[in-house]
């Protein structure tokens, strides 16, 4: 798409998001934003580097717990809490990444899934997570000691700023020389090796970056909901983020945002009506996407746009 058009698109989206709390329930929009960030972080890996991680819930969950713990038990300021969660996720991402990149393709997915399951079991046993109950009543605190974040509207603009900042970072990364090499690895790893690049290093860096941003999403989510639970670290969450990215369109910059919006809204609408059948619906969307809709919503839209332009 040409630059001017996408600039208009960005501006319109940003304006809509700035005005959103006037029309929509801010907590729901914040939830969408957190998951959109989570999915964008995941897409950096799947869409741009071609690595399918089935363990991203571990980063979401770890950051959620760490942020919750330092805010609630240690009374850290909010900014440091977010930072601590993000860094914890990045450290875990480095550990996971260093192990997982030793295998390719399908094994990579299984390794990340298994490592994330290990983290989940550790969280069940660890004393600081509160077990099945989770970490409840996390204080939101004040931003820079001034802005009261207990107010949903104040928090909303902080969350929006975080997400826009992270989105910009992802956008810059993808369009940087580093991002070009990631895409080259996705397309043809052997050739990148033959050109003299240390592929393992690039993959690891992409993994850590993706984990850190997923962690930022988890940390922010704790702030929004004031709790952190095992659900964040469960493999269902890992699956959900794959679904969001797939549905929205992997390898497109906006796809994960669209996918996350659709899935979160769907879950929100359906939770009371169909109960545990939500899982069935999510599964069905998965199957349909894989069989008939592999480009996702944004991918299809881009393809449609291109066809119209070419005509």
């Amino acid at each position, binding site marked *: 798409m040409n630059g001017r058009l996408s600039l208009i698109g960005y501006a319109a989206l940003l304006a809509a998001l700035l005005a959103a709390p006037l029309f929509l329930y801010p907590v729901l929009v914040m939830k969408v934003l957190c998951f959109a960030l989570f999915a964008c972080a995941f897409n950096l890996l799947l869409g741009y580097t071609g690595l*399918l991680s*089935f363990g991203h819930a571990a980063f979401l969950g770890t950051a959620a717990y760490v942020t919750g713990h330092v805010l609630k038990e240690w009374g850290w300021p909010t900014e440091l809490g977010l930072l601590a969660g993000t860094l914890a996720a990045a450290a875990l991402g480095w550990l996971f990444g260093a*192990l*997982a990149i*030793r*295998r390719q*393709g*399908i*094994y990579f*997915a*299984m*390794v990340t*899934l*298994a*490592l994330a*399951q*290990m983290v989940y*079991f*550790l969280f*069940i*046993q660890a004393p600081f997570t509160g077990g099945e109950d989770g970490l409840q009543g996390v204080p939101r605190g004040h931003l820079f000691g001034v802005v009261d974040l207990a107010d949903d509207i104040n928090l909303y603009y902080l969350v929006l700023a975080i997400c826009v900042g992270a989105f910009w970072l992802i956008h810059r990364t993808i369009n940087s020389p580093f991002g070009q090499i990631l895409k080259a690895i996705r397309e043809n790893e052997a050739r990148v090796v033959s050109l003299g690049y240390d592929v393992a290093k690039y993959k690891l860096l992409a993994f850590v970056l993706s984990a850190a941003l997923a962690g930022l999403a988890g940390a922010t989510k704790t702030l929004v909901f004031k709790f952190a639970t095992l659900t964040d670290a469960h*493999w269902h969450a890992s*699956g959900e983020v*794959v679904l969001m990215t*797939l549905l929205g369109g992997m390898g497109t910059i906006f796809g994960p945002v669209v996918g996350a919006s659709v899935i979160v809204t769907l879950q929100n609408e359906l939770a009371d009506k169909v*109960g*545990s*059948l*939500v*899982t*069935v*619906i*999510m*599964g*069905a*969307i*998965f*199957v349909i*996407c*894989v*069989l008939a809709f*592999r480009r996702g919503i944004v991918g299809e839209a881009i393809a449609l746009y291109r066809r119209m332009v070419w005509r």
Partner: protein
Amino acid sequence: MEIFGVPLPALMGQLMLGLVSGSFYAILSLGLAVIFGMLNIINFAHGALYMMGAFFAWMALTYLGIGYWWSLVLVPAVVGVVGIVIERTMLQWLYKLDHLYGLLLTFGLALIIEGLFRSEYGVSGLPYTIPDELTGALDLGFMFLPKYRLWVIAISLFVCFATWFVIEKTQLGAYLRAATENPKLTQAFGINVPLMVMLTYGFGVALAGFAGVLAAPIFQVSPLMGSNLIIAVFAVVVIGGMGSILGSIVTGLGLGIIEGLTKVFYAEASSTVVFIIMAIVLLIRPAGLFGKEK
């Protein structure tokens, strides 16, 4: 008598339990390996189909009065047919695509199957009684050995080695291996490869259903029984590598035993030990114990 400060009966008991879970690891990872060899797909739905097998056994007993022994034969066949339907209607369209799509599709199927059973039966487990012939225990002098556990280990080993025998030593197995190696050439020799792919998936999935029936009397029959197990089986598969049939059997049993021993010596780590071993194997031998480096 004590070994490392642990009373012998307790040690042997946990070892036995470890062998039982090792048997399940072995059957399930064998099924995954067989399917992967032929279809190049990691069957995420394997755990859900294992759960389905346990549920079908429970339903057959509860609604139709069909007992354990008939279930042991009928349920795997039914689950196998479910697998064949899945292969014909969905999986067969994915063979030309990236392997990851197969994983994603079967993940979706796992969610559907699990969700359906969950909305129908909730998450609490349903009991399934051990058949009369296998209740009770053998007194070995130093410990009591429950007959049913012994049966699970014996029949699992038999099924695993029968599978190995068919694949490695028979004409059918030779076709199968040929089709795994080079499907186009095998087809050119007049062997119906798509049919073999379909039957392979059906068979692999039937193994999962069989394991489900075996598991029904030991574990509670619950919609969630499959997903937690299958993730551990993935770790087993990563440790062993999927290249070798015998390798996946040995790895499965071995890890079950290690898990059992961990329960004795450091119970807190028993749920994570498989994953820790996976991490260590990845560091030392990235291709897996029985895998070939590409």
